């Protein structure tokens, strides 16, 4: 990514077409889209506004007012679309920005209203108490992981999951903590399918990028193929032994059951007690058949054997 000396606020330069924040094709595509949106919005809104305004004003004045209104609204839409790549970044980082603002303003407000020792004490309590209580700390950490995972997944989608021609990425919806890690719902855009996420090694790459043990993707809805669930596993929730409840059905006072089989004498339990006998091989041993398909004969390096699925 080349840095340009003459930067526009939205990330591209008008002179050389060099790109700073947003890649050139995407920037051009956004500008084209913005121009189209400007004309469409101007025309539709202008026509509607002119029709409405003509009821109250002289028709020519009304038409002029409508055109002016349409152009203004078109310009707003144009600006929004052109600025969208930057606005999107703000939207993606909104929780962090709000959190940061809350911390800064909260600290300033606290310092102004209380003496220093009291402010420090309050901060220590607000930070220390949740950090000291295990369940609260784990809950906070799991929500923090949800924020982190959304950013990591976005990075993965941009970096190595194939996107469509417009460069639009899958929409990352809700992220929720689970006992094993996180679960994220994703809405796939046109041009993507679950198969792209399941392609060879993609979920392993996702797991690496999310700093997780493993990642699983599956459909989240029987109705929409676009709604996909991503399960990120970073903990082992099944480490403890699960005791079967079946013995609870047994009453305490049952008579003991004497073994019905006769006791077996401990004979032949070691190697010297078992004599070396000749092995009788059946005479009609089957001939080794010639494989019908010679290509399956060679073992693949991954241990994949097509005949297992025959």
């Amino acid at each position, binding site marked *: 990514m080349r840095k340009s000396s003459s930067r526009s606020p939205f990330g591209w330069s008008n002179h050389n077409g060099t790109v700073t924040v947003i890649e050139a094709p995407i920037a051009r595509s956004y500008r084209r889209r913005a121009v189209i949106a400007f004309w469409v919005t101007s025309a539709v809104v202008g026509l509607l506004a002119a029709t409405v305004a003509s009821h109250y004003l002289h028709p020519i004045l009304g038409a002029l007012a409508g055109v002016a209104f349409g152009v203004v609204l078109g310009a707003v839409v144009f600006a929004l679309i052109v600025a969208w790549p930057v606005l999107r970044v703000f939207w993606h980082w909104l929780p962090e920005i709000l959190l940061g603002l809350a911390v800064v303003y909260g600290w300033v407000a606290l310092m102004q209203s209380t003496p220093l020792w009291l402010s420090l004490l309050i901060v220590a309590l607000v930070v220390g108490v949740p950090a000291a209580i295990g369940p609260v700390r784990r809950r906070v950490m799991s929500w923090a992981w949800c924020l982190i995972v959304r950013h990591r997944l976005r990075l993965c989608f941009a970096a190595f999951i194939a996107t469509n021609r417009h460069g639009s990425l899958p929409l990352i919806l809700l992220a929720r903590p*689970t*006992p*094993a890690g996180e679960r994220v719902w994703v809405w796939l855009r046109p041009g993507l399918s679950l198969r792209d996420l*399941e*392609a*060879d090694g993609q*979920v392993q790459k996702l797991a690496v990028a999310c700093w997780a*043990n*493993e*990642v*699983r*993707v*599956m459909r989240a809805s029987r109705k929409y193929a676009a709604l996909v669930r991503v*399960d990120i*596993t970073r903990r*082992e*929730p*099944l*480490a*403890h*032994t*699960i*005791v*079967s*409840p*079946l*013995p609870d*059905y*047994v*009453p305490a*006072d*049952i*008579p*003991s*059951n004497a*073994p*019905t*089989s006769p006791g077996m004498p401990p004979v032949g339990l070691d190697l010297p007690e078992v004599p070396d006998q000749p092995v009788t091989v*059946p005479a009609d041993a*089957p001939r080794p058949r010639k494989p019908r398909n010679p290509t399956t004969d060679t073992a693949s390096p*991954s*241990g*994949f*054997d097509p*005949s*297992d*699925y*025959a």
Partner: protein
Amino acid sequence: MDLTDTLELPTNPGPSDTVPVGAGLSIFDPVFLGIDEFGQPVYLPMIYRNILIGGEPGSGKSSLLNTIVGHAALCADVRLCLLDGKQVELGLWEDACDVFVGPDIHHAIRTLYRVQTVMDNRYTFLKARRRRKIGPDDLFGQILVACDEIAYFSATAGDEKTQKLFAALLRDIVARGRAVGIIVAAATQRPSSDIIPTSLRDLFAWRFAGRCTTDVSSDIVLGHGWAARGFSSNTVDPNNHGAGYLIAEGGIPALVKAAYLTDTDIIRVADYATWTRRHTGTLTTDNASPARAAA
């Protein structure tokens, strides 16, 4: 007063003085299997279903099989038919079951022939009654055919002819047995095509894959393509016995941890099952009336 009378009374109350009360379970109740990764209990409906359990040695296959057999043993209306080439995995249930087959392929084949005959007779009976499948309060009970280390019978013991016969009989029971209440639970380490025929493997509706050494082994148990979607039991911790992927209702593998029965627990449950079955005449070894005498 005679002294012997007073001496005899407290010494031996004996099983004959007490009336055994069954556990009240039914094979129509789902079997408690363990918990899933969200800590929720997992129940597996076994009636009208079959399950294939795979995984490397020590991955908890036999433990899961024992849980299923234990549930069935506490059901008064289920007969147990256990095949175990290793003898000790299901051997603790020997007194509670109707047929126990050790490392004897001919006995195994004879047993499967018996089950097949029962199945045919039941279908004839159902047809005569203009019905299509059995229900919870039927004239006859259900039969659980549990086979641990299926590879012993289908690939190791005997000659090729008997192995093929065994596989064909088992396939027939798996394919046709469900509507007449014959349930098959089979465990093996790696159900690849050289161990059991794929035509038999693909008939099992429920699958449990304990830890496997490769993604391919996991796919062989669960079905092709699950490893690519992130469901590979290769990722299960080898020290986490009983954890694995279960395909049951919903069709998507779920990470579950199977419940564990200690040997003491198994012996207690098996003794209780034996006791209740002897008294209600469920066990064929006592030549008593058929299964529904318990009801």
